[in-house]
Structure formats: structure tokens, C-alpha cells
């Protein structure tokens, strides 16, 4: 009986494969979608007045630790502006130089993510982490859900740092910690 089911399934698969010449969804890399998200987050978060850059100064997007994005993040940052300000990307090995960062993505190295978060502490920085790099969470935490890049938002942590997350961004989160 199981054999019968098998052959039917196999036939279906082969028939389906034969149709495969037709163009279909190619897929975008997960990393480039994350890169595209990063500069956009800044548009949906309000910083406390003392942390907002002056009218001519850029928004600073930092990658702390190893950088999974390469050129795709620079490309994404160039295409976005936040309230008329440019977005620039800075890369750094540790949190020591993170003073000027508005958004900080914490790169690979699961053991270090918690340490970077601890070093940033309560400063008004929108910290972003990635489930791929372990469980340590910043205010925004990327996760892949059903083949799409989504994120968790820790609103309590945002509030402690004086950041206000817009409802538009909250609506996209898979989970919000109040």
C-alpha cells in the first residue's frame, strides 16, 4: 500500500519538475533584506531630543563585530534618508567606539552579543540583533518567519532608552515585549 502512494507521489514530483522551465520567483538573499531594513528602522523610531543629530549631520548606522552585509548595507543606506538626513554606515570591532551610533547592528559571535549590549547599556541607541547569531536580543531582533525576514521588538527596552517606536513598525513585529 505504501508503495502505491510512493509511486503516485514520485510521478507527481517528476511531472512538476517537467514544468519547471517556466520563470518563477527567484529569491532574494536573507542578508540583503536585513540590510535593507536597517536604515529604514530609523524612520520609524523617534530619538530623545539630545540624541537627534543636528540638521546637517547624518544618522549613524553602526555594525559592531563581524559584518555580514558587505556592500549591500552601504547601498541600502545610500538610498534612504531620515527626516532629510543622510544615513552613514560605520563599522567597528567593539562597542568602545559606538558613541556616535544611532542604530547599532550587533554582528556575528553569539558569546559577544550580550557583552556589546551590556556595553551600550541605557544609551539611546537602537540596538539590532539577529536570531542567527544567538539568542541575545537588542531592541529589534531579526528572525526568519515562514521564509520572510521579520523581527521582535522590545518596546520596554526602547522606552528605557528614551526611544519611541512607531505603531507602523510595531505592527510588523512578530512579537512585542511591552
Amino acid at each position, binding site marked *: 500500500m505504501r508503495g502505491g502512494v510512493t509511486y503516485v*507521489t514520485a510521478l507527481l514530483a517528476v511531472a512538476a519538475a517537467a514544468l519547471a522551465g517556466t520563470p518563477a520567483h527567484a529569491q532574494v538573499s536573507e542578508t540583503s533584506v536585513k540590510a535593507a531594513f536597517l536604515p529604514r528602522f530609523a524612520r520609524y523610531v523617534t530619538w530623545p531630543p539630545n540624541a537627534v543629530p543636528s540638521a546637517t549631520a547624518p544618522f549613524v548606522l553602526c555594525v559592531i563585530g563581524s559584518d555580514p552585509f558587505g556592500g549591500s548595507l552601504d547601498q541600502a543606506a545610500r538610498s534612504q534618508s531620515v527626516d532629510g538626513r543622510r544615513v552613514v554606515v560605520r563599522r567597528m570591532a567593539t562597542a568602545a567606539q559606538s558613541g556616535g551610533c544611532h542604530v547599532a547592528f550587533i554582528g556575528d559571535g553569539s558569546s559577544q552579543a550580550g557583552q556589546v549590549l551590556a556595553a551600550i547599556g541605557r544609551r539611546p541607541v537602537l540596538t539590532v540583533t539577529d536570531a542567527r547569531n544567538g539568542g541575545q536580543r537588542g531592541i529589534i531582533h531579526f528572525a526568519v518567519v515562514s521564509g520572510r525576514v521579520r523581527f521582535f521588538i522590545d518596546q520596554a527596552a526602547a522606552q528605557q532608552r528614551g526611544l519611541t517606536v512607531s505603531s507602523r513598525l510595531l505592527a510588523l513585529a512578530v512579537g512585542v515585549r511591552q
Partner: protein
Amino acid sequence: MANRRRPCALIGACALTLSLSSEALAAEADDPVAETPQGEDLSELSIEQLAQVTVRSASKREESLGAAPAALYVVTGGEIEDAGVTSLPEALRLAPNLSVQQVDAYQYSISARGFNGIQAGNKVLALIDGRTIYTPLASTVFWNHHWPLLEDVEQIEVISGPGGTLYGPNAVNGVINVTTRDAQDTLGILARGTAGPDEATAAARYGFAIGGEGAARVYVNWHEANELPTGIGSRSDDDYRGWQAGFRTDFVSDLDHFTVQGDLFRTDGETLEGDGARGHYLLARWGRTLSPTSSLQLQAYYDYFRRDVLLVDDEVRTIDAEAQFNTTLGSHDIVAGGGVRTTRDSFSNELNAFVLNPVSRRLWVYNGFVQDHFRLSDQLALIAGVKVERSTFSGWEFLPNLRLAWQPNSENLLWAAVSRAVRTPSRIDRQLEAPPFLGAAVNFRSEKLVAVEAGYRGQPSRTFSLSVNGFVNFYDDLRTTEFTGGIPLIELRNNYKGKTYGIEAWGGAQVAPWWRLQLGVSTLWKDIREVNGADDLAPRNSLGNDPKWQVVGRSDFELSPRLRLNLNARAVGRIEQAPQIGSYVEAGGELSYRVRQGVDLFVAGRNLLHKYHVESNDPEQGQLARRTITAGARARF
């Protein structure tokens, strides 16, 4: 999430994906750093549209140069899925530094650097999410008890070579470390079914967020296989079926990560009524960041299994607790920790005269360790560590290792290491009796290894990665079976001594945007002899059934955005240990077709070149490995 199916979002994604260039596809298939597609323009999408773009997952590959200077191969979850395998042992064939032998329909013996065999394979440590899965009975692994949902496996880290300092006893020839994904990375529904003339599986998982802090998943995985034809061993009626169901929850806050996970499993064999195994475990782990430079992790688990095979029944209860502390002091990264494990087992044998005396026994293992990764300069690091361990059957054991890593640039790493590891005596080593023939070996000591290794790992070009490792292993006190000259007549002793040496090399190349190739080679020479005038009555049985060489290759073709073809082949040298078996070549693969996003149909095959081949020379249990073809479907919602 309300606008999840908004047409404009989908159109946006469609328009975008059609404009993808071939470079984008090439980059995707490579490591994350290389994923910098030039042709993708995501800049025009709104943030809501971005959240709807379907992505090809970049499986995390932790085989980075920064990782431990050791012979390390990482099998990613994505590779397992592409290879069309549904069982853990078959997934381990993807690691070129492992030797995998199928013994019967459900039993496998798996080793690195020799000493393979269902009886002799006691020198590799295996863990799943931090839980040790070798049994104190014989120091082997019952692979058929472990059916994690492979779609939820993050990666399998395979270290060939000793890992005693960090991993402890049994990590003599290698470590197999299976890590499943964080629950927040397995949200949504997954269903998979496969069926063929001789095998079938069915699996489902549901993952969901718990507030904004946590996530959980529950899963069930069912499997069935027909018996294999009789091989070198006697007929074993090895028809097999079983299921495993489990869960994992992860809760995370600023500085804490709390994980609870567990599973239940049951398998049924057909040899005798009631044959099979069942068990369960529950594990909790808490990680806390203490300061910007230090963190602490605590873990504890309880594990139980019972196994009934013919008239032999055994059960083991394990309680384990461990702590690990990481800190950075200047140019020193220090990890220190300790643990205690206790097992209570019972073993009853109504089949033959071999019994364990006592039938039931509690064993203890205590350990403490410290390791320092000292950055001597930007390019040079020295790693020194030691584990001190005491088990019920051994005195204090010292498991030190010293490693030197030279990383002249970000593409190349050269390393060398000297390590000591031991296999502590198992219940069988110490307390197996069959009066008046076999007496308990009250003096059986730990088997010992000193390993000298060196290797290179690097990325000579953007599309080519390479790893080459060489080793010389010096063993002492390996197990012999000898006449005592009195009563009882025979006992186990520690009178094999010698060395093994070999080379392992593997590499991967992105030949074309749509074509990835991987090749791995390993060789093994053994020079191990009886010492102290010993005459082994089970000649070389404890030394394993090892081929001198093995070549594995894999080729992944992305034929179209919908169609993928994975082909794999292996050639394995002959096994000279009696009963001798010849070398063989086998091949398999998977053809998969993406019906729509998240839904795949596939046909997978193993051992396609021959209807049957001899893979295991185990004189009692070895059956013929069989050509196996299955068709299946997998859907994610």
C-alpha cells in the same frame, strides 16, 4: 500582519525578484559575507513590502577562521535539507571527516579517525543541544534513539580529533555537536512527508511567539523502515518504526537567555514482541551576560531511556548539571567551568551468559576545566587549557590541550595542537562477567590518547574554501581480551598500544553561479600492537573496522529558481579487519521542485548505484545496505 497578503506587496516582491541578476544568485549560494548582490534593488520597497519579500535562508556557517583551531567541519541545516536526508546518521554523511557505516535498518556506527564499529565505536562524543548522548553502558551511541526534526537543526559541528578539555571523556577521536535552532527562528508551521518502497517519514512542527520575549515550538517526527537483507551478520528482523515528539522554548531579555526543551521517543523493532526503546529528557539552560566582558551559563538535564533487544533489557537514568563562565581579561579570553553527571543504569541479559555485576549501578563523573585563548599578537594566538576529571571507574584524569593559531590575514589560518584525551571505562569494560569464562576486569583503566595535529583552513579565493588537517594519534591502554591463566579464564585488559596517522582534506568551490562542488578525502593508517606479552583472544576487535581511505563528493545545481539538484557520491576503501569486505562506491541525491514559496516536492535516493552493498562487516549484526528511493513533500506556512 493584517496586510500580509496585500497584492501590491506581492507585486513589489515579484517585480523585484525578476530583476535579479545571476551575480545575486551566485552570491546567495555562498557564505553570508559574499551575499552582496549587485542586482537587487530593495530601495524602492516600503517597510511593509520588505517584510513580505521571501528570502532564501542563509544558514549560519560557524566554520569561520575565528573558530577553534581544530579539524572542524560544520554541516548546516540548509545542507541537510538540500541533501534530502531525514535521519541524523544519514545527515552525518555530509561531514567528510566522519566515517558512517549503516549496520542494519536502524543502527549505524559513526566515528572519526578510525575505531569505527557497532561494538568498537566508543571514541566519539556526541551531543544534542548540550546533552551527551553516549551511553555509559559501552560508551557507544544508540543513534536510533535520536530523531530530531532535521529541518529545525541549526548546524552539526563535527570536530575530528580530541576535544577532551572542553567536552570531557569520550571526546577522544572526535566530537559531534548537534545544535537545534532557537525557537524564535522556527516560527510557523512545517509539515513534511516522505515515502518509498522501503522507508517513510512524517513530521510536523508548530512554532509560535510568546509575547515579545519568547517563542516556542512543538514537533513530532515519525519514521519507518523495512528490514534490510541479511548481510555478514545473521538475519536480524530489523523492521523498524518509531516516533519522537518534543518542544523547545526560548525566552530572552536584555541580558538573559532561558531555554527549556525536551522530548519523548519510542521505537519498535520486530525481532521479538515488545522489542524497541523508549525514553525522554528535559533540559533547562540559562545564560546571563554579567558585564561587557563576561557571561555565565548554567545547564541541567534529566534523561531516561530503556532498551529491549531480544532478551537483553537495559535502562539508564542520567542527571547532569554544568556551569560555564566566559570572561575577557586584556588579551586573554578565558573559559572556565565544571560539572557533575550521575547515571544509574540496570542491565539484564536473559539471552546468554554475559551479565553486568552488579545488575544496577550508579556512576559519577565530576569535572572542572579552564582554558585561556591568549592573543599574542594580531596574528598569533595561543590556546592552553586543562580539564580535571574524576569518574567512578577512574582516578583523576588530566585532559590538557595546547594549540597555536597563526592567522596572517583574514583568509588563512594555520594551526597546530597537542592534546590528551581518555575514554574512561564503561560498565562493560569493568563489570561484564560470564562465569567461569569471563571475569570482571576490576583493574581495567582508561584508554588514553595523545594527539599531535596541524592544519590549514582558509579561503584562497572568493569562490573556493579549503581545509587540510594531518594528525598522529598515540594510543595506550586500549582494550584486549586475554587468558588469565586461572579462573575465570578470560578478562579484559589494557594491552594494545600504538599509533594511527592520517590526513583529512576538504574543499568547496562555487564553480558557477548555479553550481557548487564539494570534495573531501580522509586517510587512516593504523600501527597498533599488543604489548606486555598479551595475546588478544578477540583479535583487534576493539580497534575498529576501518577503511584506509574515504572520498566523498557533493554537487549542488540550482537548475532554475524552482528546481534544485543535489548529487552526492562516496567511495570507501576496503575493510581489512576480518571479516574483510571490499571497497565500494555509492551515490545518491535529491531533485527538488518548488511548487510555490514554502512548498517543495522532492525525490531523494541513497545508495543508487547498487541494489545492495556490504557496508558493515559486523559479524553479528551487519546487514546489507540497500538502494532507497523516496518521494516527498515539505511545506512551510
